[in-house]
């Protein structure tokens, strides 16, 4: 922080959205202070050790002793929390994600990771397998690509032809195709069966395991758009369309973006609650234009004071996560709207630790591709043609009604990952379960998800054929996650506000990461628009920010991510 503590932007919360925005704003040459009242990075998308996770859960219990405005908000957001009383050995070797997510290989988050340079800080692995739960046989393989369909021995030639035709359709520009006309909002499964004459099993596999639909009524157009982005993602880094971030994914990635901000002179202060925020109006006039657009004549500055922190900070603009938004700013804040159409739902969630890998059928293994092309992975070890090592990182999909005692309306996507994603010690695996919850029913998350956890355990590999001990989880945490209540202003829309609240992002396994990047981009441009209007004169002289000599309108061409500059060390060729 400079001597006078002046910033362009103060950001509350180090969740993935705010962290990406912080990196982009710092890279654009703005002075950013990034604060969190938590001692850890990542906010509601943090990656935590098992001890931290237990603490996280306990402090969100309604009866917990500690109180703060933030914790009250969190106790509304996270409810019905139950956890094992004992914590497994080596708790620090786990990185458990509060927002488990798959990263599409072609999509907004990958673009942000690569364009910001954050991709060089952390590691990633491919999602190895996606399987469909079938109570009769265990896990069925899902043909995820045209190659898979071609190789499949379970399908008739006619089925293969129909499926091929559909996959061609789904990976193309289908928006104006006759097959889709009038069916945009009809249930996707129904569309697959009528428009492409696909059988029930294949339709379900496509809807739940390829397009990640969560119910039989998911509308066709959005499901197709998701599926297209996944089909186009496969092949970029390997046959799976999805990557999984090391050390708990988004929480670690958020730290990477924060580092990029810090490297570009962002100031980081964690573990300090906000003491006060004063809006000091030092303007001559204080009016918004009649259209509600931002008026550059507004000159409010915010003075932020933190607990246990000597100097106050001033800022022209405040960006806040919904969770950390100080109550006093709520009335005047501009709550940015969600970027995608799918609603953010309440979810029942489970995090479990198990000590056996999932047993997948042997065919259709993603990396058993016999084609002569070089393996897509960066690793230079040749991939053995027969690989008996356990599947480390996978998704098991439970379609509605596939499991006795399970949901008849919602699909559950179980995400399992272990040492291969650096999230667990050797031989241990983290199981993430989540399902949209009907808030009108008061069924506990534990009741909803326990049958699924039992099913996952029944799919694990026994350590020895004689082993008769039924597998039990080493640790479980169940909870409900609700959309933040603070997603709307109490007053009218504050389009001219200088307090921006991050948009809500999807909590679905395959959507969170891209939604966060999209949300951050919206925050970034909104922040630039506001600051540009206020501080036009200041922009051109800020050193090291934007290209000099382009006059007062340098922001017209400002990009979310400018090209990485040619620092030879940073950009060394072999990297």
């Amino acid at each position, binding site marked *: 922080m400079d001597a006078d503590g002046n910033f362009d932007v103060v950001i509350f919360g180090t969740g993935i959205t705010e962290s990406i925005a912080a990196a982009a704003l710092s890279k654009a040459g703005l002075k950013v202070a990034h604060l969190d009242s938590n001692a850890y*990075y990542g906010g509601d998308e943090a990656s935590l050790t098992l001890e931290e996770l237990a603490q996280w859960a306990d402090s969100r219990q309604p009866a917990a002793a500690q109180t703060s405005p933030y914790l009250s908000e969190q106790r509304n957001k996270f409810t019905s929390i139950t956890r094992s009383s004992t914590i497994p050995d080596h708790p620090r070797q786990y990185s458990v994600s509060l927002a488990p997510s798959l990263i599409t290989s*072609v999509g*907004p988050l*990958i*673009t942000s*990771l*690569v364009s910001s340079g954050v*991709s*060089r*800080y*952390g*590691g*990633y*692995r*491919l999602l190895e397998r996606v399987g469909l739960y079938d109570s009769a046989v265990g896990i069925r393989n899902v043909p995820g690509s045209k190659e898979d369909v071609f190789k499949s021995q379970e399908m008739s030639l006619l089925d293969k032809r129909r499926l091929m035709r559909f996959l061609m359709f789904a990976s193309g520009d289908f928006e104006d195709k006759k097959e889709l006309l009038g069916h945009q909002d009809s249930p996707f499964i129904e569309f697959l069966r009528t428009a492409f004459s696909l059988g029930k099993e294949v339709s379900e596999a496509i809807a739940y395991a390829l397009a990640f639909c969560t119910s039989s009524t998911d509308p066709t157009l959005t499901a197709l758009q998701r599926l297209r982005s996944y089909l*186009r993602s496969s*092949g*970029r*880094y*390997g046959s799976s369309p999805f*990557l999984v971030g*090391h*050390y708990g994914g988004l929480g*670690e990635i958020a*730290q*990477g973006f*924060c*580092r*990029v901000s*810090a*490297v570009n*002179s962002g*100031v*980081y*202060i*964690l*573990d*300090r609650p906000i003491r006060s925020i004063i809006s000091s109006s030092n303007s001559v006039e204080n009016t918004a234009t009649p259209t509600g657009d931002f008026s550059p004549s507004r000159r409010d500055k915010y003075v932020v004071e933190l607990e246990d*922190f000597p100097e106050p900070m001033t800022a022209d603009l405040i960006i806040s996560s919904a969770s950390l938004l100080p109550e006093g700013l709520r009335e005047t804040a501009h709550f940015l709207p969600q970027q995608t159409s799918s609603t953010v739902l309440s979810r029942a969630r489970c995090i479990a630790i198990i000590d056996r890998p999932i047993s997948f059928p042997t065919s259709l293994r993603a*990396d058993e591709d016999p084609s002569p*092309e*070089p*393996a*897509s*992975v*960066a*690793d230079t*070890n040749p*991939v053995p043609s027969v*690989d008996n*090592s356990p599947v*480390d990182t996978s998704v098991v999909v439970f379609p509605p009604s596939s499991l006795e005692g399970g949901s008849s309306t919602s699909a559950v996507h179980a995400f399992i990952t272990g*040492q*291969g994603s*650096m999230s667990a010690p050797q031989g241990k695996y983290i199981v993430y379960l989540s399902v949209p919850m009907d808030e009108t029913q008061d069924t506990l998350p534990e009741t909803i998800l326990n049958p699924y956890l039992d099913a996952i355990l029944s799919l694990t590999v026994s350590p020895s054929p004689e082993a008769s001990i039924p597998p039990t989880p080493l640790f479980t945490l169940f909870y409900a996650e609700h959309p933040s209540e603070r997603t709307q202003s109490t007053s009218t829309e504050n389009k001219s506000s200088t307090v921006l609240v991050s948009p809500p992002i999807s909590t679905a396994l395959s959507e969170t990461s891209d939604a966060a990047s999209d949300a951050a981009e919206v925050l970034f441009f909104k922040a630039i628009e506001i600051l540009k209007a206020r501080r036009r004169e200041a922009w051109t002289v800020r050193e090291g920010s934007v290209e000099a000599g382009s006059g007062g309108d340098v922001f017209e061409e400002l990009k979310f991510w400018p090209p990485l500059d040619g*620092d030879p*060390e*940073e950009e*060394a060729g072999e*990297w």
Partner: protein
Amino acid sequence: MSKQLQFKLVLLGESAVGKSSLVLRFVKDQFDDYRESTIGAAFLTQTVALDDGTTVKFEIWDTAGQERYKSLAPMYYRNANCAVVVYDITQSSSLDKARNWIRELQRQADPSIIIALCGNKSDLAARRQVTQEEAQKYAEEEGLMWAETSAKSGDGVADIFTAIAKKLPTTAQPAARAGAARAGAATGRAGVDLNKQNAATSNDPCNC
């Protein structure tokens, strides 16, 4: 046969003890009296050639100022093979801070991490507050490497990095940048480098 090994080195220490200056001297053989606090690079690299023909390439991570308010991310320590913890010999309080960082490393980092304690600003010995004996004794107790350096004059700088390079395992797979190579080695497959997409089947990366 020469071989090149790559290691991640993290810098730690109180603000203004000369962490960045030390690296600047090591990497570019430069010194700037009025250097502002850390700016700029995500990490710097420098190579050390050992007598046996091995070259050790350091990927050096600076704290980027995140240490100032105790806000250094766990990500910073991930896969670090070695750490240089810097104190200022003219500020006894900076050695206390260094001790805290060493405890933090012992808690957070890989147990096999090699830690070097480095007393910087040896050119200001006239204003010394930390004796060599005190620092050396502490280093011995904790099993750390120790040296005094002057980023300003260059004294001892190359030596400490060379000493670290010699101590690093030359056989083990180094925990390379991005963890990609290590992940690949650990599991035999599926480590991915995001900056290298699959050329054979590359899709248009444009997402518009």
